[in-house]
């Protein structure tokens, strides 16, 4: 009971914090950058949400224990499930609002960047283009907040990681704009140094791919060689079979030839034998008739 009270209270607290942060995000302009406060609030809210998630999962296990106990009353179980579901839906609503606030804030930052572009040198345009891509991404767990009834803890962890680097980028940018004359050189430095790295990295990547292609090719060649040797064996077998059949056919031919010669040579003998037999037959017939 006490836990549920705490959980519901924390959800209300989160909602209030979210509202505060949204107000801050809306009213912050280029010159009145409240990035630090926004970052702190974001971290706070995220931690609270994770804590509440854990508390909710504890409640869920409690409920399951009660059910597995065996001697339960239907009303109690019904009450448990109703309370749990209610808390879950409330927490989900709060996280959705939080997520909306973050998207609104990133939209704001993008708008700030565009306006900064108008007033800054053109070389910084490329830098801002590259950086602006990282910021307006909505938090990655927007896809995971589905009304499935159980909030996962894992998708909240990646946003914590991505929030920190984007915060550092934002801080760097706000530091840059303070000195517009040095801005050009600093942004160019940051631009050319990563550009150099980019170039060499590009080359390294290309070399890697070439190397891997070559290794693949060598694999294909070895494959080819094995297949050809196997097929060579097949060819040898075919050759042996052919030789064997040749031998057989030769032998059979010679046998038949022998047969032929014997028959053709024996004809005189056979005529004589037949003549004797016919003689005998005639003698027999004579005897009977």
């Amino acid at each position: 009971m006490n836990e549920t009270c705490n959980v519901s209270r924390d959800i209300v607290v989160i909602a209030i914090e979210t509202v505060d942060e949204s107000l801050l995000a809306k009213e912050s302009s280029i010159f009145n950058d409240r990035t630090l406060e926004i970052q702190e609030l974001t971290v706070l809210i995220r931690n609270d949400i994770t804590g509440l998630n854990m508390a909710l999962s504890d409640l869920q296990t409690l409920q399951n224990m009660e059910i597995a106990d065996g001697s339960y009353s239907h009303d109690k179980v019904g009450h448990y499930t109703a309370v749990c579901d209610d808390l879950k839906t409330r927490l989900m609503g709060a996280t959705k609002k939080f997520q909306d606030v973050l998207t609104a804030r990133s939209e704001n930052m993008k708008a700030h960047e565009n306006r900064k572009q108008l007033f800054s040198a053109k070389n910084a345009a490329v830098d801002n283009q590259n950086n602006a891509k990282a910021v307006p991404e909505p938090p990655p767990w927007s896809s995971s907040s589905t009304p499935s009834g159980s909030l996962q803890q894992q998708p909240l962890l990646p946003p914590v990681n991505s929030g920190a680097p984007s915060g550092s980028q934002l801080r760097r940018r706000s530091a840059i704009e303070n000195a517009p004359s040095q801005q050009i050189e600093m942004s160019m430095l940051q631009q050319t140094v990563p550009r150099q790295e980019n170039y060499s990295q590009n080359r390294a990547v290309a070399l890697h791919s070439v190397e891997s292609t070559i290794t693949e090719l060598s694999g294909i060649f070895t494959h080819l060689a094995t297949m050809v040797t196997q097929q060579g064996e097949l060819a040898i077998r075919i050759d042996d079979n052919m030789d064997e059949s040749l031998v057989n056919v030769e032998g059979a031919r010679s046998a038949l030839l022998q047969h032929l010669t014997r028959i053709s040579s024996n004809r005189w003998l056979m005529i004589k034998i037949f003549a004797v037999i016919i003689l005998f037959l005639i003698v027999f017939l004579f005897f009977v008739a």
Partner: protein
Amino acid sequence: MKITALLVLKAAPETSDPVILANASDVSHFGYFQRSSVKEFVVFVGRTVASRTPPSQRQSVQHEEYKVHAYNRNGLCAVGFMDDHYPVRSAFSLLNQVIDEYQKSFGEAWRSAKEDSAQPWPYLAEALTKFQDPAEADKLLKIQRELDETKIILHKTIDSVLARGEKLDSLVEKSSDLSMASQMFYKQAKKTNSCCTIL
């Protein structure tokens, strides 16, 4: 994948404008009346980018629909105007080649240049036409392309070898059948032979 212009400039110290040492541009795909303005634009943007590139640095700037790549080496700066599809790496290797070639052919004479030189440098013009295909400029790209073609050919070879294997298999079958048949034939012949000798 097009190169619109190649420039070689002498990147003077920060205060003064860079001095153009060689210029080659291909403006054939613009209308006749736009050509001169495009050339002016190329010259101006090339100067600006070259003046902003610190020595021994490479830089790429996006300007409207062109990417301008600049490479500054000890005061000699090569700038190339390419479209978005041209791979960045080949662009920079091309600029590298251009600078090497320039230093080979003109030595150190360019250091004393104070005003834009009007003489065309034929190497740059032919480089412009030759390197419209990024594979020419970048050896890595060329090697990669050839390797891919070789891989395709090898795949086809392996397929045909497999087909050959199947045919050889069927040939083995048939030859073994043939040898069986010839054996039977031989036995039959011997049998008919042995039968009739008694008679």
